[in-house]
C-alpha cells in the first residue's frame, strides 16, 4: 500500500504509465487477431448467400460445381422403385411429412423428420435427423454423420435408397 503515500505528481505519472500499458496491450491484442484474420483471406472463400444460381450469376461461387449425386429408390412400401431424387446444394431431407424433399407418407417406421443427405465441401454426407428408429447405412445403424460413397445403401423406415453419382 505504498502507492497511497506517493505525492500527487507521482500518481499522475503512474496513471500515465498504466494508460500507456492498457492501450498498448489492447492494440497489440487487436493487431494479433487482425493478422490472423488477414491470413484467412487467403483461404478459399465461400459466399454467405445460399441460393446457388444467383450467387453463380454474381460470380460469387465457382461455376463448375461437380454433379453432387442422387438417391435411387431400391425398395419401398410407399415410393415407386427406381424413382430418383437429384441432390442439390440444399440437400435432401427424408421423413414422413410433406415438408421433406422425400416424403415417406405411409411408412410407419419413418419419423416426421428422419434423415438428411447434404453436400459439403468434402463430399456428400448422410446424417440422422433425430429419428425414432434410426437411419442405416449399408445395414449399420448411424451413430454420427457419415460420408457417402457411390453404391452405398441408405435405409430409412422400410425404404431403401442407393446413393449414385
Amino acid at each position: 500500500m505504498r502507492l497511497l503515500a506517493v505525492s500527487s505528481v507521482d500518481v499522475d505519472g503512474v496513471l500515465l504509465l498504466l494508460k500507456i500499458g492498457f492501450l498498448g496491450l489492447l492494440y497489440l491484442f487487436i493487431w494479433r487477431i487482425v493478422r490472423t484474420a488477414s491470413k484467412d483471406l487467403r483461404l478459399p472463400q465461400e459466399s454467405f448467400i445460399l441460393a446457388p444460381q444467383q450467387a453463380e450469376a454474381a460470380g460469387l461461387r465457382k461455376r463448375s460445381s461437380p454433379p453432387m449425386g442422387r438417391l435411387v429408390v431400391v425398395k419401398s412400401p410407399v415410393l415407386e422403385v427406381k424413382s430418383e431424387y437429384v441432390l442439390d446444394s440444399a440437400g435432401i431431407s427424408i421423413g414422413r411429412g410433406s415438408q421433406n424433399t422425400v416424403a415417406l407418407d405411409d411408412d410407419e417406421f419413418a419419423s416426421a423428420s428422419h434423415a438428411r443427405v447434404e453436400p459439403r465441401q468434402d463430399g456428400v454426407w448422410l446424417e440422422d435427423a433425430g429419428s425414432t428408429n434410426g437411419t442405416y447405412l449399408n445395414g449399420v445403424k448411424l451413430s454420427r454423420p457419415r460420408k457417402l460413397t457411390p453404391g452405398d445403401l441408405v435405409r430409412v423406415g422400410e425404404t431403401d435408397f442407393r446413393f449414385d453419382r
Partner: protein
Amino acid sequence: MTLRNRELVNLFVVAVITGLGFASVYIARQEVVSTASLSYALFFFGLYVAAHAVARLTVPHADPYLLPLTGLLTAFGVTEIYRLDPDNAFRQGLWIVVGVAAFSATLILLRHDFRRLESYKYIFGVTAIGLLILPALPLIGQTVNGARLWVKAGPLQFQPGELAKIFLIVFLAGYLREKREVLAQGRLKDFGPLLAIWGAAMLVLVETNDLGSALLYFGIFLAMLYVATAKPWFAGAGMVLFVAGAAVVYQLVSRVETRVTIWLHPWTDEKVFCAQTGGLALRQECDSYQLVKSLYSIGNGGFGGKGLGKGTFSNSGGDPLIPYLNTDFIYSALAQELGLIGIAALMLVFMLFCLRGFRIALLAQDGFSKLLALGLTFGFALQTFIIVGGVLRVIPLTGITLPFVSYGGSSVVANFILLAGLLLVSNRANATANIPMEGRP
C-alpha cells in the same frame, strides 16, 4: 498450438489488460474505491477460465477469439460501471456469472447437435412473439422512460426483448432455410410472411414506443432474407416498407416524433415547449439535455481521454451529470475517459467480434447453421450500431444496450447465449471441414 490453448493464451492477455484498467481506476479514485477492486480482475479471469473449460469439453474446435473478445468487452463495461458506482459493478458481476452459467448450459445442452433446434423453429417463433408482447400486458408490463420494454415479476425485472431477439433468429434460420427457394422465385403470393413480419415490427414499434427494437428485429430479418434468397431488391423493398411504416408511426406516436426532433435539432436559440416541466425552455435544457451533455463529454475526452476514473462530468452531488450513463450512455462515459484512441479500440473489438462471427457464417456448411451464425452476428452488429449511432447523433437515439458493455442483466445473459450459439456453429463447421484451419500446422 490447438485452438483451445490459443483461447487460453488470449484470455490471459485479456486478464492483464483488465487488471491494468482496474488498477488505474483504483489509483485515480482511491478515496472511494476499496482495495478489493483488483480482485475483480482475478475473479473475472477465473470466471472466463471456467467458461473456457466448458468450451474445451463441449466445443473443442470452436473459434478461439470470440470468448477472449467477449471477456474484453465485459471488462470494459465492468471497469466503467465500477468507476461510476461500485455497487452496480457488483450486480453486473453477478449478472456476468449468470451469463457464463447460461453460456455453459447452452453449450452442454446442445453439444451433440444444435441443429435439432431447427425442428422446433415454430416454438421459437411463437415464444419470441410471446416475449415481445409480455411488456405490453397489464400488471407485469412496465414503462421505463416512456418505452414499454420491461417486465416486472416480484423482485425480478427484465427485458424480454433481448431473449426474443435470439429466439427470433433461431426461428428465421429454420424458416428461411425451408422456404428460401419458394421465396426466391419472388411470386407475390409468397410475400405473406414477409408482410406479416413487417406488420409485427410495426406493431412492436407502436406497442413499445421504441424505434430501436423495431429497427433491430426488422434489420435482422432483412439481412437473413437477403442471405437466404440472394435478392437484393427484397432487402431494398423491406427497407422502403420500414421507412414508410416508421413515417406513419412518426405522425401517430409523439414519443417517436420527439426522438426525431431531438436528433435533427438538439439545440434551439429560443425557448420551446418542454413536456417534462410543462413550461418553456431551451431544448438543450430539456428534451435533448442527455444527448447534448453526452456529446459535450465525448468532445471533452479529446484524443487521449481524461484517464480512467478521472473523466466523467458529475453534478455538485457527485452523481453523474448524464442520466443513464452506465446503460444507454456508457459509450460516452468510456469515450470521455479513454479518448478517441481508447474508444476506437473498443469499436475495433466490436468489429473483430463481428468479423469472427461472419467468418463462422462463411465456413458453416449447411443452410441452417449459416443463417443462424449470420443472424446472430448481424443482430449483435446492428444493436451496437443502433446505440453507438444514437449516442453519436448519426441516427435518432433509442435506449438499447451496448452488448456486453452496458449495465443490465437481461442483455448480458442474452448475449452470452448468443456467444454460445456462435461457438456451437463454429465448432461444427471447423470439425467437419477439411480445409486448412489456422492453428493447424
